[in-house]
């Protein structure tokens, strides 16, 4: 009998071992795939049955909140500012998922982070839930200014503080009302989404950080950075010939200045007048490919910026211009794609940039060459108003040395005092800017108008940087960026300087 008891013990042990292995499979190995199954609404169900934190703008405007609707899904998201913050907050929908801050700070809003949970238990009067409120760096007054200034025209506005990387305004038109897609009624939410998706300009896409455009002449700031960094361009040399167009070696396609204008000179002159011929020649024959790629990547191209929003787009700059095909005496070597290199020098060809990226380019110049990590969250507050987490600012890129930044700053200020961006002049502040007109086609001629700028007290790091794009305008001219995007940038800059100082 004892032998059988021993055997029985072994059998029981084996049974339990099998159970233990099965538990490991269900709870560890396959846990993620089980939780990710589309019919597993555990996470969602839980989230929609408990209060969710508010999203509040930097100037204390309630942007998103949860309302108890006394329905099977107890809480529904409401956005009192309607479409004003949609590019930042995104949406939060039971059927469609979430986007924006609602997505990137989901754990904080739901109160699932360790610090929020701990805070809830440590409170003198313990709260019954631990949801956190997200305080944005984005300001309602600046959003409104950007929205009003842009009006009905499609485009984007990004304003940020170059010293911290804090996004002050981020607006895209057309946009959407997150109330509609965040409806707990599945059918209503789906209908709203379908309607938005049928619209031509993709209103649900936060274009300010997720859509890329030709940067046009605003990219000349990067071209100038590359030239200065390579040492082959200084404020006095070379002196670019005054011509109406420039034909890069290895192609017959000429790159013309706007309106057939003759244009040339030293760096500050060609920057102020935005000479296409000079910058194309600078990229193709003076600076060369490697410094161009290096300067573009130092400014953040070819990488998604580490902003605290979901899926930011990486701006693009070509990395390969082919082999050397000719080495003419006394001139720069010619590459297989020197023609492309020349085009990228004026922000055309294979260059694409998000509005956010161009704002960061301006911010880098305004902040002694240091680009801070862009972010929209200022702090996380517990229900009782106590701050449990503050955004820790950090540098992202050194786009140029402080010396080159100082030189380029002077150059961009020159664009405002006596160049294409005179519209940006603001008494009492030092403003540097660069206009852009990105050519889209010739028949009929269409273009994007750009303006990038920074502003701050004289001689100090800039307090505000902006990038504005007004999309798909009729016609092409060197004034296009200044006259279309310029007033928008100016309005936002003025408002930002007024409220921030």
């Amino acid at each position, binding site marked *: *009998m*004892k*032998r*059988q*008891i*021993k055997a*029985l*013990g072994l059998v*029981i*042990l084996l*049974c*339990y071992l*099998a*159970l*233990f292995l*099965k*538990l*490991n499979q*269900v*709870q*560890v190995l*396959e*846990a*993620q795939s*089980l*939780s990710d*199954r589309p*019919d*597993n609404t*555990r996470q969602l*169900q*839980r989230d929609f049955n408990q209060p969710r934190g508010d999203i509040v703008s930097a100037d204390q405007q309630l942007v998103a909140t949860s309302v108890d609707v006394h329905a099977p899904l107890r809480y529904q998201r409401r956005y009192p500012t309607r479409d004003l913050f949609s590019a930042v907050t995104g949406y939060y929908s039971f059927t469609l998922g979430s986007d924006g801050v609602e997505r990137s700070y989901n754990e904080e809003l739901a109160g699932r982070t360790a610090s929020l949970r701990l805070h*809830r*238990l440590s409170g003198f009067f*313990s*709260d*019954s*839930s*631990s949801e956190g409120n997200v305080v944005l760096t984005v300001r309602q007054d600046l959003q409104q200014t950007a929205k009003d200034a842009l009006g009905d025209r499609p485009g984007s506005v990004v304003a940020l503080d170059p010293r911290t990387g804090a996004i002050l305004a981020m607006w895209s038109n057309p946009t959407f009302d997150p109330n509609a897609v965040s409806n707990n009624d599945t059918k209503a939410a789906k209908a709203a989404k379908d309607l938005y998706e049928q619209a031509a300009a993709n209103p649900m896409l936060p274009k300010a950080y997720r859509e890329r455009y030709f940067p046009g002449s605003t990219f000349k700031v990067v071209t100038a950075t590359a030239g200065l960094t390579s040492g082959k361009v200084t404020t006095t040399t070379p002196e670019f010939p005054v011509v109406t167009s420039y034909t890069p070696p290895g192609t017959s396609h000429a790159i013309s200045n706007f309106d057939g204008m003759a244009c040339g000179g030293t760096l500050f002159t060609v920057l102020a007048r935005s000479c296409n011929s000079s910058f194309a020649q600078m990229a193709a024959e003076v600076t060369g490919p490697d410094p161009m790629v290096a300067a573009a990547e130092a400014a953040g191209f070819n990488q998604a910026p580490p902003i605290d929003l979901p899926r930011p787009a990486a701006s693009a700059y070509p990395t390969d211009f082919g082999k050397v095909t000719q080495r003419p005496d006394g001139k720069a070597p010619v590459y297989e794609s020197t023609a492309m290199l020349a085009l990228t020098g004026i922000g055309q060809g294979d260059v694409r940039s998000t509005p956010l990226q161009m704002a960061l380019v301006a911010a880098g110049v305004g902040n002694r060459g240091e680009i801070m990590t862009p972010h929209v969250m200022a702090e996380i507050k517990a229900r009782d108003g106590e701050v449990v987490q503050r955004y820790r600012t950090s540098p992202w890129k050194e786009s140029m040395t402080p010396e080159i930044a100082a030189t380029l700053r002077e150059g961009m200020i020159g664009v405002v005092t006596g160049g294409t961006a005179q519209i940006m002049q603001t008494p009492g502040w030092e403003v540097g800017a660069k206009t852009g007109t990105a050519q889209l086609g010739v028949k009929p001629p269409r273009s994007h108008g750009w303006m990038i700028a920074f502003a701050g007290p004289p001689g100090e790091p800039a307090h505000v940087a902006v990038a504005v794009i007004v999309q798909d305008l009729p016609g092409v001219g060197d004034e296009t960026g200044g006259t279309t995007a310029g007033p928008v940038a100016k309005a936002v800059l003025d408002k930002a300087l007024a409220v921030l100082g």
Partner: protein
Amino acid sequence: MTATVTAEVSSTVRSTGKRRRTTELGLLVLAVIIILGAYALASLGRNASLPADIWPFLVVLLALLVGAHVANRRLARCADSLLLPIAALLNGIGYVFIARLDKDLAALQASWTAVGIGAYVATLVVIRDVRVLQRYRYTAGLVGVVLLVMPLFPVLGRNINGARIWVSLGPVGFQPGEIAKIAFAIFFAGYLVERRELLGVATFRVGPFNTPDPKHFAPILLAWGISLVVLIFQRDLGSALLFFLLFVIMIWVGTGRVSYLVVGSVLFLIGAFASWKAFGHVRRRVDVWINPWADPHGSGYQIIQAAYALAWGGTSGVGPGLGIAGRIPYDSTDFIFAVIGEELGLLGTTAVLCAFLLLAGSGLRIARESRDPFPALLAVGLTVLIAFQAFVIMGGVTRLLPLTGVTLPFVSYGGSSLVSNYVLLALLVRISDQTARRGPDRLLVR
């Protein structure tokens, strides 16, 4: 000579008893701390406040466990020190989760726990010598059969959730099958000890095999028959499986002949196949086991939600009181293991697994140490009941086995189950006490 041996034995027994009771007290204190901690955490998780009734809870918990401990000191001084603390721990953890799921059920479960511990003490009081039960083996068998078929009587029985295993006497409803299991264990232990020689001798030739006389297979056929009755008329798959396991394992252990295991397995397979063919509800269970996602909102719903709960818990669980309650049907009874898995994670489920394994190990050790065949075999039977019932339901919840609805001993909500498991525990305690008191084998050999 005899006198000195007796004196030596009795002094050894005294010191053994003292040591064991001290250990037991220590383990009980540990169990109380764990239970109280879990109770507080579950309430903190749900309401961010300590439970309002934490002090009454502690008082009642201590009163019940101290009561049982004092009963052990008085009535079963030398009994194994692990049994009661493990049962207390499982019972307490179960209560914490029932309280977290349903306050009303928790109040009932508290009463049932009190009744259970009362039954535990009463069993120790009434049964001073477990060998007496051997004399009542046929009575026990009869009682078992009567209890088992009771729910089938039109006036007494009630159909609940498709299974006819309930009996209502006035306002109180209970499942006689839970008590019947113990009665059958007693009957079989007695019957097998009486017949083990006959059953163990191979005198009958079938082809090349020597097997015992077929007439001795009668009890195993009876067991098979009873299981089928339970299965067919009461639609209680879990209990049917458990009865059959109990009988087959006890015959095998009692006689030492593997042929009973083989015949038993063949009969089981035939029975299983036939019932799969014959009954829609058995087929459904198997289909759900193979692929619950074929009907995720119907028959597969429960098992899928249990899997999601377990997966959601992951390694360390979401925390007591922080899971999503009310998603799994029968979460406080058959599926409480999934709730534990969600809130305590793999660590919690493994702890429960280990507790049952320790309980089974203790039961088998008690069986091995006993000199008398009847208590030894009874201990085996009782251990099989608890170990396999726990295995069958935990395996069902995790989809290791097809789901058969039985309670998780000591953990699930359910009065009949709790009370009968405490009676079962008392019998094991009594057997272990008697073995230690009389001195285990090796002591006398020396």
